[in-house]
């Protein structure tokens, strides 16, 4: 009986040792709960509170005399809103520049710039004109009538920038510059407005129309509403602009996109991860549904090809790609985690920089 008692004490000792080992194991490792469990990248699907505040702060123009706007207006969005406009794409340059992805791209750009001539970089050249692209530019937008840039241009020396030609005043705060071409002909017309907008138009009429809209003398279109101004890149494109993303524009898929998709509302978020949402709308719900399926299948096929060919990195880029069907529209969603982008851009600069090829 004593032997059994001694034996039973050994079991108690073993229990204490085992619990102690378990406690040590819990302490010694970093802990599974601390391992980075990457959440899915966020996607821009609606106006967030910070973006709503941003939107309100930008509405610095008084309400238009025309009855179609009853609230203060955003100068850049107003400049884009031609009555027949179908395209308006805005890049939040300031936000992109300060985002982790933006930093990656800038670093990559800087590293890949050839320095063989030892001359000034493009950025330095622009800074000499009184505008620091990395500090003074807020947004860059592309519309049907040209490009619009917003920012702080109070120190800009536009005359030096545009060939020394004297500006023509237009409206209350507009200054028009005609940019000569190399052969001496007339090129685009640039309108600088109020030290905060720069409009690059194809011709003088377009530039004047833009200034008129900003100063409230012309009616506005509705190409991009205020509540659509979310994300780091946002806008509306006509369907045929999307066609080229899926192979040749006259290919089977591209052709279908061009025929079925009437408009595409695009939003891209680059706060950390990069998330893209493209809402595609059309007039034919049935064809739209089929198009959504075809696009979804194309994405899956691309991923499968990448996996099959051993390009795991490419497959990882398409990991979060999907098509979400709706009633009279569908959304194309894609996302790339920041870590993946960082890994992809890690070679940047080493391949194309001064040390490339060694």
């Amino acid at each position: 009986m004593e032997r059994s008692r001694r034996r039973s004490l050994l079991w108690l000792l073993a229990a204490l040792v085992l619990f102690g080992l378990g406690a040590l194991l819990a302490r010694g490792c970093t802990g599974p709960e601390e391992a980075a469990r990457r959440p899915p990248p966020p996607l821009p699907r609606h106006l967030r509170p910070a973006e709503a505040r941003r939107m309100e702060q930008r509405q610095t123009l008084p309400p238009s005399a025309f009855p179609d706007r009853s609230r203060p207006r955003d100068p850049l969005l107003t400049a884009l809103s031609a009555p027949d406009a179908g395209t308006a794409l805005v890049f939040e340059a300031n936000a992109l520049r300060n985002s982790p992805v933006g930093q990656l791209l800038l670093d990559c750009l800087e590293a890949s710039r050839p320095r063989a001539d030892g001359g000034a970089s493009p950025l330095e050249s622009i800074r000499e004109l009184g505008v620091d692209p990395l500090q003074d530019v807020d947004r860059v937008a592309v519309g049907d009538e040209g490009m619009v840039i917003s920012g702080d241009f109070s120190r800009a020396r536009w005359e030096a920038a545009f060939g020394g030609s004297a500006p023509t005043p237009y409206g209350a705060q507009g200054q028009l510059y005609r940019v000569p071409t190399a052969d001496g002909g007339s090129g685009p017309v640039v309108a600088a407005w109020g030290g905060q907008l720069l409009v690059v138009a194809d011709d003088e009429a377009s530039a004047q129309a833009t200034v008129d809209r900003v100063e409230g003398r012309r009616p506005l279109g509705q190409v991009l509403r205020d509540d659509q101004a979310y994300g780091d890149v946002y806008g509306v494109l006509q369907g045929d602009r999307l066609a080229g993303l899926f192979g040749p524009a006259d290919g089977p898929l591209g052709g279908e996109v061009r025929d079925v998709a009437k408009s595409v509302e695009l939003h891209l978020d680059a706060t950390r991860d990069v998330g893209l949402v493209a809402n595609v709308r059309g007039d034919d719900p049935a064809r739209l549904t089929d198009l959504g399926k075809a696009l979804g299948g194309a994405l899956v096929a691309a991923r499968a090809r990448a996996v099959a060919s051993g390009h795991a990195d490419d497959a990882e880029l398409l990991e979060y790609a999907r098509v979400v069907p709706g009633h009279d529209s569908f959304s194309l969603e894609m996302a790339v985690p920041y870590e993946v982008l960082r890994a992809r851009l890690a070679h940047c600069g080493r391949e194309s920089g001064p040390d490339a090829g060694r």
Partner: protein
Amino acid sequence: MAADLLREAGARKWFLGLAVAITLLLLALLGGLRLEVVDGALAATRLFGKALFTPIRAADIALRPVFIAASYLIFYGGMAFGLIACSDFAPALLSPGRIEHLLALPVRRWELLAGTFLGVLLLGLLGATYGAGGLLVILGFKTGVWTWHPLLAAALAAVGFATVYAGMLAAAVFVRSAAVSAAVGALLLVSGILAGNRRALLTTMSEGPGQLVFAAWTRVMPPLSTLAETAADVAAGSPVAVGQVGTVVGECALFTAGALAVAVWRFEQRDF
């Protein structure tokens, strides 16, 4: 002992009910779930004829949330079921008339406990494997996506339940009561969830005896919530570090062995 326990479990309504429920659920999925897979993409989903607006994406990616949900259901749902359904195996083993008969047989005391524990472990593994295996077979036939990851996750769920049951067994040796055994199991489950989140919880606690007690308690407890998350990651086929899996399984295994050792210690010296 383990085989006898399985035979006994097969005669109990609890387990028959569970088997029937899992089977019905799988049959419902088999018959009611329609998945349209085109070129590897999950294009459309219908459940009992009703279309579900699901994103069009690669079938294997689309199935990940399903496997994750199933993994959590098997882990926590299975554990909750096991707490109740298995709580009286050990008290029944120790019941007067039965334990005396067993102890008079040429079986060592610790073997009786080990056999009971193994039997329950096998029971848990069978149940988890049946559920996970059935699901992956059905989805495999419907989508063409075949993966054994859900089975691995089921094995991890069985590890988790084994950890909790070891504590229940030890409690039953001290107090022959199914209710106490189930209560200890529930306490271990909650403690295991807290242990898996101990670092985050410790940062919310102010320094003092309470924090020390909590830190010490959760350090010994098995990190069940972490095991559940790991199982879900495994089920989804997400990359999981082998070291991470090994660590969390190791902690659970050490706790299990410790609890069993306590049970044997008490069992060896107890009169019946």
